[in-house]
């Protein structure tokens, strides 16, 4: 479960990115987070993956309190969260399979576990036949699917996707969203940050809208019920 309570984030340069933001995402939910540039979406993601700390308020992610988290606990918190970025963040010099191996080794997985888990995740995203390809030999949609498969490797309870369709055409974007929906159906909490209104409206999901570091709307559809 993700819970942010009265979260304030002020950067060292004086920018107030979040101004008392409160929101909660239950286990197994699928949530879109939308908002204009500078509304605080990226700051929320950075907070949720432990890249920055809140200036005030509480942030809870899958049982970890990020306000007082110890440095050594951060990697273990991150293992409960799979992150997907707009730019895929794959290693160009490694094959799809080796990208996956790299991610699993980074958390200390053994060869047996690696051999078992990678085919399962590649199969889930429909790329089991392209495991030996380099990322540059794949389309944008396929690269994003590899990134999703990588995010699933450690069996996280939450997937956070930061503009996952930002580099894709509408057809591929829909494909990725449907994949995330399918992953959500398997029990994984999914938080998608996006600004693609048409795409969001194709799914009957909860939409949290941010503006100036606060939640201004929370409900089904692009313009959900106003909360503040």
């Amino acid at each position, binding site marked *: 479960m993700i819970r942010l309570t009265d979260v304030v984030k002020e950067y060292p340069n004086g920018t107030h990115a979040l101004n008392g933001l409160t929101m909660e995402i239950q286990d197994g939910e699928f949530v879109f987070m939308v908002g204009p540039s500078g509304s605080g979406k990226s700051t929320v993601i950075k907070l949720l993956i432990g*890249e920055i700390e809140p200036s005030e308020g509480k942030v809870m992610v899958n049982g970890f309190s990020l306000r007082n988290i110890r440095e050594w606990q951060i990697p273990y918190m991150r293992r409960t969260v799979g992150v997907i970025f707009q730019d895929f963040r794959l290693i160009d010099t490694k094959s799809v399979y080796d990208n996956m191996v790299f991610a699993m080794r980074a958390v200390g997985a053994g060869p047996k576990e690696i051999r078992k888990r990678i085919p399962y995740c590649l199969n889930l995203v429909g790329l089991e036949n392209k495991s030996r390809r380099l990322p540059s030999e794949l389309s944008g949609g396929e690269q994003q699917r590899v990134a999703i498969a990588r995010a699933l490797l450690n069996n996280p309870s939450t997937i956070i996707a930061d503009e996952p369709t930002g580099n894709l055409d509408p057809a591929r974007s829909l494909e990725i969203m449907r994949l995330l929906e399918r992953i959500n159906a398997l029990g994984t909490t999914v938080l998608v940050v996006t600004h693609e209104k048409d795409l969001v409206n194709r799914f009957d999901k909860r939409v949290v809208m941010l503006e100036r570091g606060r939640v201004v709307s929370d409900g089904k559809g692009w313009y959900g019920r106003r909360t503040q």
Partner: protein
Amino acid sequence: MSRHNIFYFAKEGAVNMFSHGFMSFATVGITVACLIIMGTFTLVAVNANAMLADLESESQILAFVDLGASEEEARAMEKEILAVDNVAGATFISDVEAAAAFRSRYEDDELFQGLPDNNFNHRFAIDLADIGYMRETKEALEALPGIESVQAYEDEAAGFITIRNVAGVVCVVLIAVLALVSVFIMANTIKLTTFDRRDEIAIMKMVGATNGFIRWPFVYEGFLLGLFSAVIGFFLQWGLYEAVARSIASNDTINLITTVPFVDMWSYVAVIFAIAGMLIGVGGSLSAISKFLQV
């Protein structure tokens, strides 16, 4: 740390090292140079110490008993001489033995062959515990009643002590400076590696790799670079030392200087080079990677 992780770290460390071939080569080269300079100064200090130790063992001072004292009276002074601070031992030499030694030294010169024995003083050849206190010991012996004079080679001893002290200070300062320079250079090489792999590091952190897991391959890389430098440096130092020792031995004007054979100290030099190389390597790696592990 599991077995497959150790192999993984070692493999990654080695791959990093070869993937930045030129920088690794430059780092090893400069670290070798630093190790050799450090080693050379240390070996100079070791040799100065060894020569000083030889000088100490050879540099007896002579205390002459008053001329006219009988042999019994002179021998009776041994106890008082041994009671003087810094006197490690005293050997009595009678006037007859001294005269015989003198005559034998000038056996080709008839002028000295007729000297009577009683022209020579009875004397004590005195060994010192510490050559550094030669002057004080000489003064204490001269103050003893019945001692006419004391002969000591103070200037030579002082010269060696100065050389030893200066060499010691220079060594310590140079070793510290060169070690810092080496760590700095090593840190820069590893920084280049970490910069080159910043995307991989970001991915590792994103998926939940611990700082230790991210750090180890770089520590291995630094360790390997340091160890290579130490091995190369050791053999170059050996060759250099032997060459200098041979040239000293073959030179008529400086062959009074004796050098400690390298084979007598190779194990110490090897251990010190290995430890210094590895510390420089690991220290440089840790210093370079710390910045990347803050997020």
